[in-house]
């Protein structure tokens, strides 16, 4: 999936997360962009930056930081 947006890195506030999996369910990435904790991955940059995961979270547990495209390579 192509996107003109800058990649983002998500952060999950573990204390707020209720492990509902809604973020994973709406993620249009191919397999693998998930963590072992039934949430969206936080250890790598997301280059489509659709923000569906952050939007669908029932408890606002997901936030993100924007990277400039050139920085994504470090993840």
């Amino acid at each position, binding site marked *: 999936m192509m996107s003109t947006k800058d990649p983002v890195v998500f952060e999950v506030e573990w204390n707020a997360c209720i492990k509902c999996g809604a973020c994973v*369910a709406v993620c249009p990435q*191919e*397999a693998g962009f*998930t963590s072992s904790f039934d949430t969206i991955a936080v250890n790598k940059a997301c280059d489509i930056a659709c923000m569906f995961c952050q939007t669908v979270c029932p*408890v606002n547990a997901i936030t993100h930081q924007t990277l400039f495209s050139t920085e994504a390579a470090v993840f």
Partner: protein
Amino acid sequence: MPNSSSIGTMTVFDIVVIGSGPAGTTTARYAAEKGLSVLMVDKKQELGAPIQCSGAVSFNALDNAGVFPSPEFIQEAIYGFAIYNGQGQKKVIDYRKIKPGEYGSEAGAKPLGFVVDRRRFDRYLATQAERAGVTIWLKTEALGYRVLDDGSCEVALKKFNDTITVKAKVVVGADGVQSQVGKWAGIKTHIKLSELASCLQFVVDGVQTEGLLEIVTGHEWAPGGYAWVFPKGHGYAEIGLGVTRTMCTDNAQVYLDKFLKQSFFKERFKNCRILEIQGGGVPLAAPLKIQHADNLILVGDAARHVNSITGGGIHTALSSGKIAGNFLAALLLSGEPCTKENLKGYHNNWLNAMGNNMWKLYEVKRKIFDTADIAQRDEQLYATMSNYFSVDSEYKKI
């Protein structure tokens, strides 16, 4: 009792089921009862947890799937519904009054349905599967599958710290709303943001209920969904809601707080004490058009077998699990390979038994939520919900 066999060091099963919810356990049980060797894996350490479901299921749903309504998992019996519009006007559909003697708590009468404890319910279903001969591995994450030249496939698993590969004729993806198994085969399983209800519920003490599932419609309280009050047994209740995030300005938490404090139930909820917090994503989406690939099928939430009017998924999971288990048993025992072409029979069986009706429900739901005028939409949802649960509903079996 069927057991796995070994070729060299590789363990071999007829079927590997990924996910131990109602769809996975039921598929596994029906297949094992017919004599197949079945491995069911789940990455979790506890069955049924974390709870992402209100637990409402009809008596018929259990009965059709051969699940005895055991006190082990029943929290409270249900006898009907109360559907509210946004202003608090209600339609009560109490089967104790509509069909006295048939439905009720007295001897000889039966409940219409139940609210179940999903931890105990899923464990009960897993026990049934295990007793039918299914091998269950928890703390076992499925990492991927690969189709082999001999017509079978291998599945990579991580069981505690060990990476294991098992060989199977077919993989069943019963891995829920977050399904990854379908993605392995290139099936697009992610759900549109506009079709995933974002749900949150509190288990509370101090709220009276009367054996009815109470459903509160109205854009003001739950845009693109509804709010609910369900009896939970022992004097507890569930208060929750699901919203479609593209139709609202805030998250589910904000709406639930508003429902508790500002709705026509605010006096009723005034002294409630929150005991537990649960949430989930519920696909109010069309069922997947493709639910199978070479050596692979999807069941339950993973295939979006969810009633898109009610958001209910236990009945549909049990039914599709039974269809899948029986179909796979017949196919494998016939000696035919599990090609995509042959597995289409599962999809066809599912369409005939329930899928076509689920598609109809989805169209009804879509028409309601596509209505731009909020007052009109609210009216339609209230009317549809009231009809849906009525005694002559054409969808009673879903």
